[in-house]
């Protein structure tokens, strides 16, 4: 009988709301997290062993990919969406741009099995892992059994992702009152603009309200992606996508669900001048956001204070060496 591992807690940032995974966060397992990290960085999860989770979710770019607008999968296949960042997922309610996934445990099923992503048959993943020399040992250490199951595979990946907490940006340091850290005048001006115009959806401290919104983007007719409506089948959800966190936005370009904007300048220009009317348009955006060119620069400067280098280069989240 395997020795029962004693769980441990990750420090939760002060003043943050309760997470969706409170019980799990209270009792994390180092062995499960480590197993999850190994799996996250291992292309064995894909059909031809070329794509790992980290192929689209690179740590130093806020656990998303850059360089291209849409995610790439096996055999050079291209999906229809920009990969989302993996930050503070413990506070995330529904996952994916359209909220298709209702729990972090079962999120990995989608990319592993999707033909345009890892394209692998789920039982085959288990067979491949079971056939390695190392994984049965690691599963035994984490779960007490070297017989690899889907449940254990998914829970290990989820535990690793629960540890991806970003809470030490300059914004956080200012908010905590860390000594010697303060916003510049321009950052403060940007912060005030943010609170006035953006905080309703990109709500502090997580910089998302976890809801779905139509933010006035015209549909890309090469993709015809109607967002949340695909899941809910309700016309009221047409063109609604999940509000993403803005944490580490400096490094998570390109932006939007289809990666259509390459930089923050274009994003802010869209909100001030490019909003397209639609029956489901978010009420906050009916008139667009009135931002002068100076305001847009100030806002950008504030957004850069959401960069958390400790998170982006934390060796605990990195490729296991």
């Amino acid at each position, binding site marked *: 009988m395997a020795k029962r591992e004693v769980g441990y807690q990750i420090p939760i940032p002060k003043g943050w709301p309760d997470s969706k995974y409170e019980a799990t966060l209270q009792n994390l397992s180092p062995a499960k997290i480590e197993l999850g990290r190994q799996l996250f960085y291992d292309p064995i999860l894909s059909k031809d062993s070329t794509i790992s989770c980290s192929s689209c979710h690179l740590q130093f770019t806020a656990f998303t990919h850059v360089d291209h607008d849409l995610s790439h999968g096996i055999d050079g296949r291209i999906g229809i969406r920009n990969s989302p960042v993996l930050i503070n997922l413990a506070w995330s309610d529904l996952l994916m741009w359209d909220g298709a996934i209702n*729990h972090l445990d*079962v999120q990995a*099923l989608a990319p592993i099995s999707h033909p345009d992503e890892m394209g692998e048959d*789920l*039982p085959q993943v288990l067979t491949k892992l079971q056939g390695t020399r190392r994984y049965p040992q690691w599963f035994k250490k984490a779960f007490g059994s070297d017989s690899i*199951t889907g*449940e254990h595979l*998914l829970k290990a990946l*989820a535990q690793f992702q629960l540890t991806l907490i970003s809470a030490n940006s300059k914004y956080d340091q200012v908010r905590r009152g860390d000594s010697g850290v303060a916003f510049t005048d321009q950052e403060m001006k940007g912060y005030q603009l943010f609170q006035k115009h953006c905080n309703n959806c990109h709500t502090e401290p997580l910089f998302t309200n976890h809801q779905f919104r139509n933010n006035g983007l015209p549909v890309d007719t090469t993709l015809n992606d109607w967002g949340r409506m695909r899941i809910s*089948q309700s016309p009221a959800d047409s063109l609604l996508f999940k509000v993403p966190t803005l944490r580490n936005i400096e490094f998570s370009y390109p932006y939007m669900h289809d990666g259509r904007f390459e930089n923050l300048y274009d994003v802010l220009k869209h909100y001030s001048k490019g909003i397209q009317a639609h029956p489901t348009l978010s009420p906050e955006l009916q008139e667009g956001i009135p931002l002068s060119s100076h305001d847009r620069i100030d806002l950008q400067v504030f957004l850069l204070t959401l960069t958390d280098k400790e998170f982006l280069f934390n060796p605990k989240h990195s490729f296991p060496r």
Partner: protein
Amino acid sequence: MNTKKLQEISVLLVAAVLVWLPMGNSWAQSEINVTYIPQFAGQKLSPKNSDFSYQKKPLKLSKFRCYVSGLEFLKNGKVVWKEETRYFLLDAWKPNTLSRKVSLPPQVFYDQVRFQIGVDSLTNVSGAYGGDLDPTLGMYWTWNSGYINFKLEGKSELCTTRKNRFQYHIGGYLPPYSTAQSVTIKSAPGENLEIGIYLDEFLSQLNLTEEPELMIPGQRASELATISSQIFRTSP
């Protein structure tokens, strides 16, 4: 007391014990067999018998699976005993999944048995489970969270789809289109439960040509789930 009298008393005592023992057993814990029998047009479906005739054309079943759970024993409509909730994945291609033994405690008198088809909403939103609920067993959607409660696949010339396939993956937990169902059947203490699953009756409630597949949650899934619950009943 003479010897003859003692012998008579001994015989009576032994007889009383012999009569009492089986009576006593009826008050002790009892065990019943619960068996599900998927069938099509009067024939039992099995890995070796999956070719049938439907509307005068050949029909081949290639998959039948569904979740059942929560056996409850009722007397006059009230639950008198229930099993600890556990999900069982029935698979017509794995005959050992179709039957099991259930141990009831003593003195449970019932006239009905109730069970659930499908996975409840709480389980659907609570992450990954193991055993029969392992999400890698082919009964969990990957593009949209949630269990498939009832899966029936096969081929029929009535279908104009690729390779004449029909596929029904019935699931969905969100109201108003939740698909978990409850089935109640008559039974009595000591009776084994033989529950027929009349799959041809499921197909007869839809048009195989016009609706050869359904693999998403929603209103139609909810309607087909109601139909699926009507095909479970004790064998005549």
